[in-house]
């Protein structure tokens, strides 16, 4: 893999126009807060978090151009000009003629699956994300992960660990003929560590889906990061611009769903875009019932404007080079002080291998949760467990995700965080496991409560 970063310093291709105070609490305050929140970081108030790496979703800093566009938004209920601008950008990027805005990505999933998925069906992907899986299971169907074997090995440095196993996909599609309402790929593969999918693999999956007459739907919430990885890592792609690569990616599928809260650089919003109009009426009817009218989809018009501008900004290669550098820098920094991470670092996040770091804590005592709690307690860092708490027994790995909001934190923030991790690395043998004392029926990680097992 060629190293894209000749410099050690992360140069942000922007300067700061608006700032937000950074909360700083004492360790004893955080200990009290952690206890009150049942040791679940999702239940901690944001004002009590110093470095919020819980997610890169909806947490981006918007640009002056995005804020400017928000001010000229047309909030008419029907036929808003903001929708026309939004639609034009999405069509131009994806090449798909039919665009349906939604309030965020999970609404897009719910609408699309609601229209296509029936009980007993199976939906293959590289890895399904938590809300995706929950939406499919809610409909009585099964979400099946077919990522390549390398994608399940945290130490393996395969350049495209998000790839789907084409051999298994072929067997799967032929084995469950007639029971697969759609086939998916998530780019980048969030659950598997923010790992990219190669164009070659995308082409292969598209061919298999086409062969079996299965509509191919991409989850494209980090399409720009994936396209940039293709440019950096895939043979023959180096000279293309990222936009072209993204457009080829879209052209291989029959449609996409997008959470614009990631590579849309916005704080809210999402969409479905489709090549064909066959599901359009069903989707729009359901959209009106649960989201909003087809020209606003449950979003304020200003958010459509922010997404339209964001989808253009995100393809700036200077931005993408900075973006990818953040997780590379953090990954290398953590590894240097003996904290094992999924290799190579993903596009939007670094995933710490909690099982390898904390061998004294068995899986059923949630090593990831133990690390997440310690990071908050000692440093005010909020991160997300991606392991047995989030996925239950389906979880192949015990990871802790540090997801980096776009354009929010500076290199000095990251250096400060790395210093904090030095202390955590020194104390790793003292960390204790947790047990779950309250468990909601689905998506339990959001509201579950824990107690430390001493």
């Amino acid at each position, binding site marked *: 893999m060629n190293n894209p970063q000749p410099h050690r310093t992360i140069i942000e291709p922007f300067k700061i126009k608006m700032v937000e105070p950074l909360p700083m609490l004492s360790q004893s305050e955080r200990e009290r807060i952690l206890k009150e929140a049942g040791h679940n970081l999702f239940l901690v108030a944001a004002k009590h978090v110093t470095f919020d790496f819980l997610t890169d979703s909806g947490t981006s800093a918007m640009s002056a151009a995005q804020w400017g566009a928000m001010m000229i938004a047309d909030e008419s209920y029907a036929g808003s000009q903001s929708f026309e601008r939004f639609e034009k950008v999405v069509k131009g990027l994806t090449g798909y003629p039919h665009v349906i805005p939604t309030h965020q990505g999970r609404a897009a999933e*719910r609408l699309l699956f609601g229209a296509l998925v029936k009980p007993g069906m199976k939906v293959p992907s590289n890895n399904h994300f938590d809300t995706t899986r929950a939406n499919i299971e809610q409909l009585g169907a099964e979400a099946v992960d077919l990522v390549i074997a390398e994608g399940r090995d945290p130490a393996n440095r395969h350049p495209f660990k998000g790839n789907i196993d084409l051999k298994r996909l072929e067997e799967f599609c032929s084995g469950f003929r007639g029971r697969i309402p759609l086939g998916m790929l998530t780019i980048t593969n969030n659950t598997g560590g923010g790992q990219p999918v190669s164009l070659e693999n995308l082409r292969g999956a598209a061919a298999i889906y086409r062969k079996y007459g299965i509509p191919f739907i991409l989850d494209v919430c980090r399409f720009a990061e994936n396209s940039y990885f293709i440019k950096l890592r895939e043979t023959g792609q180096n000279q293309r611009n990222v936009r072209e690569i993204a457009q080829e990616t879209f052209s291989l599928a029959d449609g996409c769903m997008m959470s614009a809260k990631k590579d849309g650089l916005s704080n809210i919003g999402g969409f479905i875009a489709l090549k064909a109009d066959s599901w359009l009426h069903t989707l729009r009817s359901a959209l009106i019932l649960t989201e909003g*009218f087809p020209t606003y989809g449950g979003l304020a018009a200003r958010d459509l404007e922010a997404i339209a501008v964001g989808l253009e900004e995100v393809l700036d290669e200077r931005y993408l080079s900075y973006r990818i550098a953040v997780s590379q820098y953090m990954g290398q920094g953590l590894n240097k002080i003996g904290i094992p991470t999924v290799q190579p670092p993903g596009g939007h996040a670094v995933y710490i291998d909690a099982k390898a770091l904390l061998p004294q804590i068995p899986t059923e005592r949630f090593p990831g949760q133990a690390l997440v709690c310690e990071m908050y307690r000692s440093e005010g860092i909020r991160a997300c467990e991606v392991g047995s708490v989030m996925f239950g027994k389906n979880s192949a790995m015990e990871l802790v995700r540090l997801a980096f909001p776009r354009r929010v934190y500076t290199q000095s923030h990251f250096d400060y965080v790395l210093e904090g991790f030095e202390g955590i690395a020194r104390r790793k043998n003292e960390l204790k496991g947790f047990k779950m004392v309250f468990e909601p029926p*689905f998506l339990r990680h959001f509201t579950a409560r824990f107690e430390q097992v001493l």
Partner: protein
Amino acid sequence: MTSKREKRSWAEPFKIKMVELIKTTTREERERALSEAGYNTFLLKSEDVYIDLLTDSGTNAMSDNQWAGMMLGDEAYAGSVNFYNLERGVQKYYGYKYLIPTHQGRGAEHILSRILIKPGDFIPGNMYFTTTRAHQELAGGTFVDVIIDEAHDSEKVLPFKGNIDIGKLETLIAKVGAKKIPYVCVAATVNMAGGQPISMENIREVRRICSKHGIKVMLDATRAIENAYFIKTREKGYEDKTIAEILHELCSYTDGCTMSGKKDLMVNIGGFLALNDWDLFEEARNMVVLYEGLHTYGGLAGRDMEAMARGIPEAVQFDHIRARIGQVEYVGEHLSMLGVPFVKPIGGHAIFLDAKRFLPHLRQTQLPAQSLAAWLYLEAGIRSMERGIVSAGRDKETGDHHYPKLELVRLTFPRRVYTQAHCDVTIEAVESLFNDRNNLRGLEMTYEPKYLRFFQARFKPLE
């Protein structure tokens, strides 16, 4: 109108800080735009509209204080400070214990219907509303209209035409049994009845009956602050109470509410579900994660929760709500003087033109309200909304149209957006159509979607 100086006393309690330009169009341009939109005002492009009275939902002008709040959006995925500000506001002014934000009102209806309604249930309410009934039916329930009969008579003047007919409610309970009624859905005000309010006495009585049978009362609080204004000005014993006190009392007779913040609270997006029962809240919270977003943002940007939180204390100011409803009354009183038929008394958020009496030469299947809305756009670039046979949809059993008694065109006023001069233009346009009413043709439907057809249906003029 200058002789009625006292009527002008609702002068806006604000000045203008930011403006948005609007376009004037020629009749030829409007003819083309209308034809391209299939004679459905929902399908017009907003840039072709001069005065947009389609809806008061999400079309409001926010205050500088709300915009400042937008800049304080805490976009953290979990535990945003804006959520806690909103929660505090809802607890203080609406009085409910638990809050679940949703991306808008229908998100809250979706969740409430899913957690409370079982197939075969009946949900009584004071007149249907399109999305509310659709959600109830989707969950397997049947909506039963228990509004007083007078609500269906556009000429009848009653102070509280949105009231529930207690007799009808008791009859339904006796007929299907309380176990089949998960809750009574009380709207305040009643949109489809012409923005008509319910009285405090009425909701108190509904509460008493429901408590006797162990039935929950759920409020559609979307325009509850407008309702509170009518209680203050029309109901004995409430003259000296503040809008905030009345709102709080109104909510206190209910177990929870669904809310579209896009109306009373003057935001462009956002809503919530508020509940008093912890177990119900827990169920709703698990569901909101799946459909809307984590329970501390519910599919809203942090900034939008902040704008909604800041809208609450502004909305309960008496000067604000008097000017708000005063503007609607201004238009209504002028139309009344011209003899234009519309729903009386004048409602809180809109004037509902009575298309049946406006266009008596059209049968209901010739879509008088849809036609009137189309011709009003053609006349002056004013966009309104049909609330008649097209909105009512089809019966899920027989497949035939619902035939609502009222065939209305809604002129809905966004909050703080249009000036009195805009209102005068509107009055003149309606007057001119009224003078030419015998020449106005009906419409027929050429495309009909399956659900909520009024949004996307297409029409053409009858020969």
